[in-house]
């Protein structure tokens, strides 16, 4: 019997936003979900597999460096397929948040639904530099500069605050 990685309190707890600071990892514009997690790794429910192979086709050395990182991306991050495993893989690899000027809309919903904070803001990326943010106050700070972030809708904020859509509906039904 395959282990069910979505069950258990430990995994549930890991969905909650953990911190609001991290080291920047820079990625280019138009990162599609095939690049985030390739189709060849989708036929499993083991999140560890997705986390281990995240961004493999972009840079195979990236996955181990994502723990505690803030991904700073170019526009249109997460375009392409609806695969939720893309958002889960990023979250499970230990990424704190993803920052981009724009996100593809399905990825946007998926990320919030699984409790991965996304920040719509335009900032230049310096690899390894410290990035801080406050979702409540609506800012992100990088290299001493503070940028305003586009606020999430009230519903999205509620979902994110609950830790994801599963938790949101567990609380609402």
């Amino acid at each position, binding site marked *: 019997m*395959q282990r069910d990685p*979505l069950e258990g309190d430990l995994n549930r707890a890991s969905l909650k936003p953990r911190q609001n600071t991290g080291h920047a990892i820079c990625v280019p514009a138009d990162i599609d979900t095939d690049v985030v997690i390739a189709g060849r790794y989708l036929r499993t*429910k083991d999140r560890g597999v997705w986390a281990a192979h995240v961004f493999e086709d972009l840079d195979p050395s990236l996955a181990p460096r994502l723990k505690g990182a803030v991904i700073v991306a170019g526009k249109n991050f997460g375009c392409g397929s*609806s695969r939720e495993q893309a958002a889960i893989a990023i979250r499970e690899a230990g990424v704190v948040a993803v920052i981009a000027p724009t996100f593809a809309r399905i990825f946007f919903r998926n990320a919030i*639904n699984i409790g991965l904070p996304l920040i719509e803001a335009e900032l230049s990326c310096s690899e390894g530099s410290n990035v801080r943010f406050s979702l409540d106050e609506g800012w992100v700070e990088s290299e001493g500069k503070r940028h305003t972030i586009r606020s999430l*809708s009230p519903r999205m904020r509620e979902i994110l605050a609950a830790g994801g859509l599963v938790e949101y509906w*567990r609380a609402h039904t």
Partner: protein
Amino acid sequence: MSTLSERILGASAGEYVDRKVDRAYAHDGTGVLALEAWKNMGGNRLAKETELYLQFDHIVPANNSTTANLQHELREFANSSFMHFSDIGGGICHQLMSEGIALPNEILVGADSHSVTLGAFGAFATGVGATDMAAIWLTGETWFRVPESLGIHLAGRLSGAAEAKDLALTYVGKLGTDGATYQALEFVGEGVHGLTMDERLVLSNLSVEAGAKAGLFYADDVTMRYLKEKGHVVIEQVPEPCTYVGELDIDLSDIGPLVAVPHRVDTVRPVQDLAGLPIDQVFVGTCTNGRYSDLARFARIVKGKKVAIRTIVIPASASILAETIRTGVLADIIEAGCTIGTPGCGPCIGYHMGVLGEGEICLSTANRNFRNRMGVGGEIYLASVATAAASALQGEITVPEVT
């Protein structure tokens, strides 16, 4: 005065609304995670007000025991619920929904990005991920931000060897992969009335490749006739004057055969520029170009000849496969040396049924040419059915003849 999206969602662009979903569907890929999320939400009920569908199309039949076990669990769940279930070989979810299920003015949500395909019927159709789908199973509702709309004004008629696919690649090339992010496309202008339902489905299908949330046509006499044949009487949707955030004018008579080159759908070039490029495989099928009219057009070009390279043809649904058998189209395709796959997505997502080896090049009628999508190290060129047929016969990218 409203756009079609505003009319169907009943609110103005920019507003957030909760809406009942008329029909919701998922496939064997997204259904697995949706089922997990639904269970974790405390899933002890399914929304009765929403028609729910589960269609196996991504990895069909199962390629190994891991897939088989995941599909087994999902199949048991489907059979124990009142969901409409289509097992392996039934066809691609979007195609099945287009065979007399999706109707104008409906709100349709699929757990697949190409759910935008159904906007061709004058429905608001969009894709979501697995957890959103689970919440729809549970509640029958979801939230939307009513999108701004971009008007794609079509004039004239397609001519020569040009197909709807070439038109679709044209607008994706012009808009770019994020040209319509968070927005809906509306296809309008006198040029739309000359487009068949199959052609409209191609145009709506590609709208997500420009980042769009939906790609809509207004239901007209073409829509009404198509649905009437499938037993539905629907009324026309008349466009009102409305505000678009952007407009794009395309004269259909200017369109020629195009190819989207690796690894972006918006890097589009005339087939002429790539003519002579050797290829290893041709793939005809998918939710973009696996319909009966596509297969019949392909057969007309290859009939009585032999393809020069391996050529995989996959009907988008079982009913399309049956029709190709009845009309002799299938025999023409097989006698030309092509092979046929189980109705479904085929090798489009790089799982099986035609995965590419390293360094191999595939000319495909699908909708995505992302890096490694059909196999690590493989390259994908996207083109029309006619370009695929001409290229299969030559073993290299070939400009289709005007027939």
